[in-house]
């Protein structure tokens, strides 16, 4: 990234203390909180950092690339007088950047005089538009029972070894603006994808790049890569740089931007590392007390505003350490985001793709984007009924494991069959299968028809009359 807009500020030679990526610089005056600095080591190499704390005659600095090779006397710190800004322009689509926003694809610096603060500013709640347009992803477990809307933040909670990358890639490839069931497909609108990788392996970044290429979307994608062997501290900036570009594209260029952030767990670890070095009071599992506010300052940059047609939709990916959903990262994420798609290990073992664990998954905004004039009138109750029936299946399975399937009542046996079919026919679909919303609803009704009518208390009697296909003839 360029020499931002900053005129050279004061320069201090020598630092007082170096501890991990943290430097304490003495003798600097009038330093601004959160200001960017350039750190030059004794061989003339320059790296960047920013101010974390200022006091009388000293400043605490975090070096993005770490402190390797810095010495007490041989280090020069130049204060640039401004917070971290990156250039933002439409030309950044189709390009690849490092975690701080510098091009790494061999191409030139983006040419623009438009720079934006990576920290962004909070959206005024009165300026937002509540999300109501659903995105058809072609995946039944999302469109049918955890519908994603434009302007929503919906994370994927996964674990090591599960196909979250494939699922994210499939969503990105298949996502189109949803329409009322049965209506013809409309023309696509201007869309863009901003992809940020924090501490993931090169293979993962490569997988996404290939997937974008195959779907022909690569020219619409900006990638910000901080890979596993890149400096961890840089990770603090990577998602913010990505979101800063996304905000520009959505709110000034009126595009529909899908932001994929992976893996937020690595981001959290980088934040914890800095907090530890600074000797801050830890809260849970050593994470700093401000983890919630820090995560919110990124997730809340999703949405729609009244002055632009564009939108930002976020899909952060988190691998839950030890598959523990109560770990601070997924936990605090879940409190901020508008739902979560949880991948389940048992389904994955059973060869179900995508292994979406339907019961703990949730889309909070779903209710506002489905139903009459949006998808189909019966959709909300149909979804609740599928959930309720599948939840009941779990109880029946627990019982069956104790007393054996043969001992189950007739109705319970039907639930067992329903549960198996639900996983194999509804949840399971191929990586390339793009289901319409009609198809998803149809499969759901087919499955519900395996149960007696009396069990279907969430849907209305009219809906049963219209869609029920089972052999239960009672009324």
């Amino acid at each position, binding site marked *: 990234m360029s020499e931002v807009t900053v005129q050279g500020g004061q320069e201090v030679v020598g630092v007082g203390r170096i501890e991990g990526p943290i430097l304490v610089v003495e003798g600097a*005056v*009038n*330093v*601004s*909180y*959160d200001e960017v600095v350039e750190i030059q080591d004794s061989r003339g190499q320059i790296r960047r950092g920013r101010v*974390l*704390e*200022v*006091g*009388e005659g000293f400043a605490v600095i975090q070096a993005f690339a770490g402190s390797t090779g810095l010495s007490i006397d041989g280090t020069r710190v130049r204060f640039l007088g*401004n*917070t971290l800004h990156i250039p933002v322009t439409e030309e950044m689509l189709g390009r690849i950047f490092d975690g701080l926003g510098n091009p790494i694809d061999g191409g030139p610096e983006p040419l623009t005089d438009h720079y934006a603060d990576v920290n962004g*500013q*909070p*959206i*005024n*709640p*009165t*300026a*937002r*538009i*509540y999300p109501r347009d659903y995105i058809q992803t072609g995946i039944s477990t999302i469109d049918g029972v955890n519908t994603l809307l434009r*302007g929503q933040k919906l994370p994927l909670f996964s674990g090591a070894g599960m196909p979250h990358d494939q699922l994210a890639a499939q969503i990105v490839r298949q996502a189109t603006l949803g329409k009322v069931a049965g209506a013809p497909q409309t023309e696509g609108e201007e869309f863009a994808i901003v992809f940020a990788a924090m501490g993931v392996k090169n293979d993962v970044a490569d997988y996404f790049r290939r997937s974008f290429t195959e779907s022909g979307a690569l020219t619409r994608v900006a990638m910000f890569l901080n890979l596993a062997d890149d400096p961890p501290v840089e990770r603090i900036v990577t998602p913010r740089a990505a979101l800063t570009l996304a905000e520009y594209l959505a709110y000034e260029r009126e595009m529909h931007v899908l932001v994929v952030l992976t893996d937020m767990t690595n981001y959290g670890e980088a934040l914890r590392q800095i907090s530890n070095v600074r000797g801050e*009071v830890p*809260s*849970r599992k050593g994470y*700093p*007390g*401000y983890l*919630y*506010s820090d995560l*919110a*300052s990124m997730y*809340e*940059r999703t*949405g729609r505003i009244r*002055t632009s047609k564009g939108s930002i939709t976020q899909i952060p990916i988190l691998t839950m350490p030890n598959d523990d959903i*109560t770990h*601070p990262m997924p*936990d605090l994420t879940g*409190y*901020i985001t*508008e739902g*979560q798609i949880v991948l389940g290990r048992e389904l994955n073992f059973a060869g179900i793709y995508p292994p979406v664990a339907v*019961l*703990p998954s949730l889309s*909070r905004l779903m209710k*506002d984007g489905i139903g009459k004039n949006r998808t189909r009138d019966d959709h909300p109750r149909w979804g609740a009924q599928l*959930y*309720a029936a599948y*939840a009941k299946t779990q109880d029946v399975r*627990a*019982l069956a494991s104790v*007393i054996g399937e043969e*001992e189950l*009542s007739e109705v319970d046996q039907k639930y067992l069959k329903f549960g198996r079919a639900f996983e194999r026919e509804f949840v399971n679909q191929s990586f390339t299968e793009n289901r319409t919303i009609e198809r998803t609803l149809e499969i759901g009704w087919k499955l519900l028809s395996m149960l007696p009518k*009396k069990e279907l*208390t969430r849907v209305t*009697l009219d809906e049963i009359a219209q869609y029920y296909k089972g052999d239960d003839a009672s009324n």
Partner: protein
Amino acid sequence: MSDQVGTITWISGPVVRARGSRNVGMLELVEVGTERLVGEVIGLKGDQMTVQVYEETAGMQTGAPVYGTGLPLSVELGPGLIQSIYDGVQRPLPLIEAAMGSFINRGARFDPISREKKWKFSPRVKVGDEVKGGAILGAVMETDTLEHRIMLNPDDSGTVTWVAAAGEYTVTDAIAKVKVGKEEKSVSMLQRWPVRRARPFTNRRGANIPLITGQRILDTFFPVAKGGAAGIPGPFGSGKTVTQHSIAKWADAEVIVYIGCGERGNEMTEVLQEFPHLVDPRTGRPLMERTVLIANTSNMPVAAREASIYTGITIAEYYRDMGYHVALMADSTSRWAEALREVSGRLEEMPAEEGYPAYLAGRLAEFYERAGYVDNLNGTQGSVSIVGAVSPPGGDFSEPVTQHTKRFIRCFWALDKSLASARHFPAINWLDSYSEYIDDVAAWWREKVGKDWLTMRNRAMELLSEESRLSQIVKLVGPDALPYTERMVLETTRLIREGILQQNATEAVDAYSSVEKQIRLLELVLYFHERGMAIIKRGAPINLIHDLPVVDTIIRAKSTVTNEEMHKFDDIQKQIDEQMGQLDAEYRS
């Protein structure tokens, strides 16, 4: 009015230290830096002051000035509060949007209450009247249905020397003059009150009138009294916010104060877009016309989040003082506690549990104790009821905020992840929740609804806890091993769970249940149980009861019978009689 009182020496996030005057007061409002950002003095040591700043401090420099104001952090009170939406320190968000666009910049300063708007004032006192603090001097109609009573500042009292004639005035125009001691004070419709000081009242009354919310699991099973305090703890996705919204929509309070404290921006937008279109069932006016919103979302400055709770409760007390019933929702108090923790951490205070400061419990107590049903200074009665959401990390109720909150509330609505997963909403677990107001409000039900609510409610709870015991056995041996009498209990509790406890906030008929409908539903289910049990005891097999068509009718009654069609319940009762009567006749012989 604001002189420089210090110079900044240290900055870390929202906490700033400055050196200068020794005459700055604790909790004084100050303006920090060249942009004059709003802050509050939270610590003093010699000539050094510690300030929490309510705006983003990025770019602020050491050596910059701090200005004093001589006043504590206060809110403006007067007509125009209703239908407003403020941030945590009472800055009007619509004006910020008009001036700065879609994003909130720093340094925004606007009057919380419009100085231009004129209100039609009618006096209630005359020259020569002796008035005490809180006395009602006059009134304006703030909305078509809400009379805003203009009160004398609670700290003043004296003789009225002049009253404005009925007519139109702005909030800053003098509407009366009162001789306080030797001094004649000019009184306008606007007053300021420090947020951290509870507004005074004469005395507390018992809380024995339920706050009716139209939510069956709350009103029928775990009622909160007007002037009471309730907590809703729950893991993410269990429906805290939906429950809070439902209460804000339907509670029978005259004024609602809704505090979005460190939560999602889209949720506040939802309230803003939905409430003007929803009709208050009692007044027939849009719900927004009784609502004040405080929105300090999770990405807005953390210190202002800490203040938002106090801003909200002070506004609530102000309307209480007029003689109104006010319900305050705080979503979420955990985010407020985290703001305390964050500021405490920056001050390097010694942490107690999980990094929270040792004064967490004290602060929670101060907040919840500002709820109450009281006799006001002016002789009217009013109440502030508090419903606080709690977001325990990992859904673990043993964490400090949930545990301390439990000490200061008397009504606990425990949300349950597994109920939410099965889409049983509201996902309030009936075995973990409790209300200490049950006996207090029983008399109200007898007098106002004319039914023995307490007995029916306890009977239903008894069946539900019986179900919990039986389901342990069912898990081990299957339902077929149970005797028919016990399976009858399971049939009935299914009706209670699906027909009463489950309530769909998004369906027009089901979203709000009148108390009459609630009690009638309960009565029907219990009637079904008694009749069914009698038949079972005569030897009828359980599947005959299970297969009765009326079972489905009862489960669907919540969404097929509106609050106005109470006679339809008589039809359902007739169906029970007919269908059970047939079985009864068969097995009597």
